[in-house]
């Protein structure tokens, strides 16, 4: 893994030697992440040729221009959560924005923040809460990059109220040719950051999709994101210390409801009714494994509690009410929710019960996700069997029942997937129930056999969806060649745009769609 002659020196000269590194002890850290089965099985994975740390948009432009001059590829990363951040070919450098970690502005009046790519949700939300605002935090965890998550999906725990994939405002985007494309209101040098749609052709459409361009079209170096009203305390109200902590929001403004329904169909009906009534800030079906792993201070605790907990925690809907205008809103919304629950035969989990004690941190998770790393403790590896295909709540249920759970059960029979949420997904409502996505969780050991079962099943969810004319799981990278021919050949349009904007294929070359289908 080495760069063309002269390239390393050029990077050092531009950034300073302290911000360029090809020491294998460092670069090895950028060649691993969980889930590489999904994208690197054919290509193999590589240690990057170097890691560079830009300090500014200008630095990023220079790196991109050097890459074009010396003809090597680069991957812009955020906080390195997903496979597209790992090289799938040699002689690739990583642009790590660790030094670009500043919140540049919070506009309280117009509810947005301007951030650099290494700003995390936890960092931004902490500052926003001080001025009565918040953001919907990625459910991958509050430790992830705000910029990267918004470009990928922008999903979050309070998406029922705050929406999904709608967070991007003005941006500075370094294109694969090194020029800066100003998105939205940034296109007018007098306007600032407040608006995301471009004057003229709306090129913001190339930044967002069902999973973004994954660094395949350059790097966004500064982004304004939407913030939302927040009526709570100025600091996140947490008591205790990890692993034993509780959140403590004022009950007159924040109210968690955990509701058991007789079956999943009733739960789905409740989600629709809540959406039609336009109440609540967060609405999720919560599977037992997720709730218990989040509440478990140790893996031993999880397995000790699991046999009984999985029987008790079935078809549970978590509904968080927030009084944005006043406590009166919570009182009203609770009355509506009570009526819906009664009509559909649901039962509230009582606050003095063991189930409540385990599940009550759900409200904190929705507002600032912090327990997602605990999911890995259950078996070593974790993901979802497929899902993410965004459509209606009904569609989520159909996808889950028709082909996702049968695939999970197949994996369980092989002894690879544990434990069993018994047809309960993590099913999320977005934008007051206008959209939904479902994620049936799977846990598996970190070995090649189990990984192979996972990725095979994941690919099958795409094939099953296409066969049934339903919506598919995210097709990342090479998977687009499976979905594209069945979906108006979108992959060809994407590929043509990639070739036009990145003719030397320097910017994460295999994303958003590789040049060739997998062999």
């Amino acid at each position, binding site marked *: 893994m080495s760069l063309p002659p002269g390239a390393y020196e050029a990077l050092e000269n531009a950034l300073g030697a302290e911000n360029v590194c090809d020491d294998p002890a460092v670069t090895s850290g950028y060649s691993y992440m969980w889930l590489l089965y999904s994208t690197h099985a054919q290509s193999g994975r590589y240690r990057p040729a170097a890691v560079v740390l830009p300090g500014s948009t200008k630095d990023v432009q220079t790196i991109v221009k050097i890459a074009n001059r010396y003809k090597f590829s680069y991957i812009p990363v955020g906080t390195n959560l997903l496979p597209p951040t790992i090289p799938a070919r040699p002689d690739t450098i990583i642009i790590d924005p660790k030094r670009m970690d500043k919140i540049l502005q919070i506009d309280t009046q117009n509810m947005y923040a301007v951030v650099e790519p290494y700003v995390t949700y936890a960092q931004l939300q902490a500052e926003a809460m001080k001025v009565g605002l918040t953001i919907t935090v990625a459910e991958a965890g509050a430790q992830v990059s705000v910029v990267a998550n918004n470009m990928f999906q922008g999903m979050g725990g309070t998406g029922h109220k705050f929406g999904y994939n709608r967070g991007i405002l003005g941006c500075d985007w370094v294109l694969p040719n090194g020029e800066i494309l100003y998105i939205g209101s940034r296109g007018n040098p007098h306007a600032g950051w407040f608006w995301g749609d471009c004057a003229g052709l709306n*090129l913001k459409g190339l930044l967002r999709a069902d999973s973004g361009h994954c660094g395949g079209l350059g790097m966004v170096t500064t982004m304004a994101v939407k913030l939302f009203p927040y009526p709570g305390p100025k600091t996140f109200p947490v008591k205790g210390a990890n692993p034993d902590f509780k959140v403590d929001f004022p009950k007159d403004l924040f109210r968690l409801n955990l509701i058991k329904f007789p079956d999943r169909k009733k739960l789905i009906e409740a989600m629709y009714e809540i959406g039609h009534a336009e109440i609540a800030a967060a609405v999720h079906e919560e599977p037992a494994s997720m709730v218990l792993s989040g509440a478990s201070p140790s893996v031993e605790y999880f397995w000790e509690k699991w046999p009984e907990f999985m029987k008790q925690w079935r078809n549970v809907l978590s509904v968080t009410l927030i009084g944005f205008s006043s406590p009166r809103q919570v009182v009203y919304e609770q009355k509506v929710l009570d009526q819906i629950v009664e009509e559909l035969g649901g039962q509230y989990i009582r606050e003095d019960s063991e189930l409540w004690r385990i599940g009550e941190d759900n409200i904190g998770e929705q507002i600032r996700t912090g327990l997602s790393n605990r999911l890995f403790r259950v078996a070593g590896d974790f993901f979802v069997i497929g899902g993410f295909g965004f459509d209606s709540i009904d569609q989520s249920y159909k996808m889950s029942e028709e082909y996702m759970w049968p695939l999970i059960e197949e994996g369980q029979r092989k002894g690879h997937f544990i434990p069993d949420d018994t047809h309960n997904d993590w099913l999320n409502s977005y934008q007051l129930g*206008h959209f939904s996505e479902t994620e049936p969780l799977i846990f598996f050991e970190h070995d090649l056999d189990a990984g192979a079962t996972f990725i095979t099943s994941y690919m099958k969810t795409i094939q099953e969806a296409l066969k049934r*004319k339903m919506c598919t799981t995210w097709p990342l990278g090479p998977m687009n060649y499976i979905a594209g021919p069945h979906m108006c050949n979108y992959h060809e349009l994407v590929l043509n745009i990639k070739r036009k904007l990145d003719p030397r294929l320097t910017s994460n070359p295999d994303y958003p769609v590789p040049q060739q289908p997998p062999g």
Partner: protein
Amino acid sequence: MTEKVLAKVDYLKPLPDMPYDVVMAGRREYHERVRTSLADIVGNDRITDDQQVLERYSHDKSFEPAGRPSFVVYPENVEQICRIVKKANELLLPVVPASSGTHCYGAAIPRMGGVVIDLSAWKTIYKIDHRNRATRIQPGVTYDELQRALESHGLRALFPLLPRKDQSVVTSHLEAQPKLIPEFNYSEPIYTAEIVLPSGDLFRTGTAAVAPPEANKTDLIGPWGPGFDWNRLYTRAQGTLGIVTWLNIMAEPLPTREKLFFTPCNSIDQAAHFTYRLGKKWIGYECFTLNRAALAMMLAEHGPDEYRTIKENAPAYLQIFCIAGLKRFPDERIAYQEADFFETARECNVSPSVQVPHIPRAASFFATHLRQCWDRDVYWKDMYKGASAEIFFITTMDRAAAHIAALQQEAIRFGYDPSDIGVYLQPIENGRAAHLEFIIPYDPGNAYEVRRVKDLWINASEAMYRLGAVFTRAYGYWADMVNRCNAVQYATARQIKEILDPNNIMNPGKLGL
């Protein structure tokens, strides 16, 4: 010094050129050949080159220069559109889609001629999906038609302010006309779309991509992808990237009870401050502010004298705010929101009321017109002088006062009475941003006034831009204005256009493309 020798020119010798009658015959033959090839697709009765018809499509209410199409076609189905577009690629014939009856901003003027594809007769409402709060419609469906259909299913359309009777809902959504309800979720109301690409191939966005609606087992709700966010790329594209043949869009629960409140304000800053506060409370539905001129344009039924009387009696600015109840406990919903609304009003030192002081018919007007098209022949913006110029853009509410002051300065500079300029401030996404619109009435029969208002319109647009206005709907002159200041955006947009439309047949010239 050498004497100059004049060139000898034999002016009598015929030039080596084609006889003019042959040239004309060639043109006629070409015209007829194009006509025949289009008629082969749509049938003889669905194509016209009647001069009077072509004239109607050659200009609109804007200041944009005219451009006449060679043909107007009225296709019956999507297959015909695909074939027309493929034929247009062969002939390098510009294609301009049109769906509304009245055009206002130059987007449907065929500046380079070609063929107009008129879809205003495409009026099918394919589906009203109450469960998923969606409706799938063709481009010719108007707001009144849609609203009538939705109400029988307990739903309502997301209305802009008093749309024209012949306004296409699809075009309104594609052009991102601001909606009266500043709810965060409604700023992107398109779920999925079917698009005839510039190649003539059919494309569908979001979950619709997986199969045509009749075979598709999704609910056609998922808007993202596939690949890129095509809905966003095609929004405000003015037909430069293809022809949308249906949209599946949001439809919301129909209120069971509602209450309107009117808040007089002394300044736009006072109205903005109150609206900001309400946005953060996340209550109410329709919310917008008009100045006294805009209010008078809407309410005057009997000509300029009544307009002046209303204008004299109206407050400087009036905020209109609607609170409504839905199916469950509607009175309780209204009650809690009303309490929070008045609490906020007290904190902002404003005094909302259910009536507009001195203008008794205002309350009933808005009670009936929030979900209705403009129902009189002369559009409200044209009521005062017969025509109007509009300047609108996206900004923030705290900049509105500066924009208004700058516009008034420009008006004075051009000898126009600034008090006659209508102001409409529409908060978007809980007040995070705002659509600010100026309505400048003029007499279309007075050539001097037309020229003066056009100069004012251009100079004021430039002044707004310099103050940070974002002209997301970059029509005509505005496209040149924004492109000249954003070179990389313009160059990248041209690259995207070249990929999707290499022959540049789709509405060429619009957006500067």
